[in-house]
């Protein structure tokens, strides 16, 4: 009887352990995640780094006293230059400047021109002017667009250090606001991010 009894306990314990393991496994193993999460999976440049940089730069620019003074009277027209990616990684830096530009436009403090869509704009204005389809009273004229007063320029640098199985990556994003008339940098700020990763002894 004792033997049966111990057998039953063994079966029950094994079953409960199996249930524990199986309890965490769901199929299919795909689910939506939080797009704003700060979960770092590797030392590579990630979505959270992009969001943190964009938020810091926008907060800094919007509260810099000389800029506050300018934007209290008018909404300056700006343009964004490409970020100089000096890291060893392939990073879509346009996604970063797009985020910064969207936040600045939504603040209601700045207006932007976008040179990347100029060809499509030229084609449209040409059509309006030359196709004969558009009423010339409402047709857009060439040479009427606003010129940018300021330009946002940026650098992204990376310093990597390795010691044993520890990898330390330091990112530094620098952004400047250049007055296109005078060439003076009216504002500048940096955001630093450090990520430390430890490789496991087995694998990787």
């Amino acid at each position, binding site marked *: *009887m004792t033997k049966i*009894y111990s057998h*039953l*306990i063994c079966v*029950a*314990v094994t*079953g*409960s*352990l199996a*249930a*524990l393991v199986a*309890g*965490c496994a769901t199929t299919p193993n795909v689910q939506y995640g*939080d*797009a*704003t*999460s*700060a*979960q*770092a999976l590797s030392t590579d440049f990630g979505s*959270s780094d992009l*969001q*943190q940089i964009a*938020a810091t730069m*926008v*907060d800094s620019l*919007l*509260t810099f006293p000389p800029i*506050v003074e300018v*934007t*209290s009277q008018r909404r300056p027209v700006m343009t964004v230059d490409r970020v100089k990616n000096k890291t060893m990684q392939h990073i879509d830096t346009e996604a970063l400047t797009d985020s910064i530009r969207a*936040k600045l436009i*939504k*603040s*209601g403090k700045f207006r932007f021109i976008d040179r990347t869509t100029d060809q499509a704009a030229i084609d449209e204005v040409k059509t309006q002017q030359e196709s004969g389809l558009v009423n010339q009273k409402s047709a857009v004229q060439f040479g009427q667009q606003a010129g940018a007063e300021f330009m946002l320029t940026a650098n992204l640098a990376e310093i990597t250090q390795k010691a044993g199985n520890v990898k330390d990556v330091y990112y530094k994003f620098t952004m400047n606001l250049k007055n296109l008339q005078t060439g003076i940098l009216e504002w500048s700020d940096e955001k630093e991010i450090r990520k430390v990763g430890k490789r496991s002894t087995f694998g990787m």
Partner: protein
Amino acid sequence: MKEKNSGKMSAVIVATGCLAVGGMMVGCATKTSGLEGAAASVETPEGNMQSSKFVIVNNPKLARGIQIVDLKSVFVGDMLKGQVTLVSKYSSTLSFQYKFAWFNKDGVEINPDAGPWTPLIMYGNESKTIQAVAPNPSAREFKIKIRTQ
């Protein structure tokens, strides 16, 4: 005797079954609750700015390690800037993440879910201030959410 034994056995099976179910529930659940602090700058009918603040603790374990000691809101130009002062009550390093949420004068959130969760490292018994600026000039109130990584 046989009845007594089978009763014992079924009790053991039920107990281990309960343990397994409990283990399943605990094993997969990570506490994602945290602390919330709110501060508002409201204009009184006399034209003065009045501020109100409160803190909600949803995770007592986290609140034992970190404390929101002050919430401030100031205007920079017409943009609301929020500042939160945190104090670590542990002597070792703690890692958290925080997020700001902004509300207009009617209590409607501006750009919900737009702000990122930002990682924060606090060394032993350190006090730290964190700041953020509202997305646009309509903000009158902010909320800070803090949770573990």
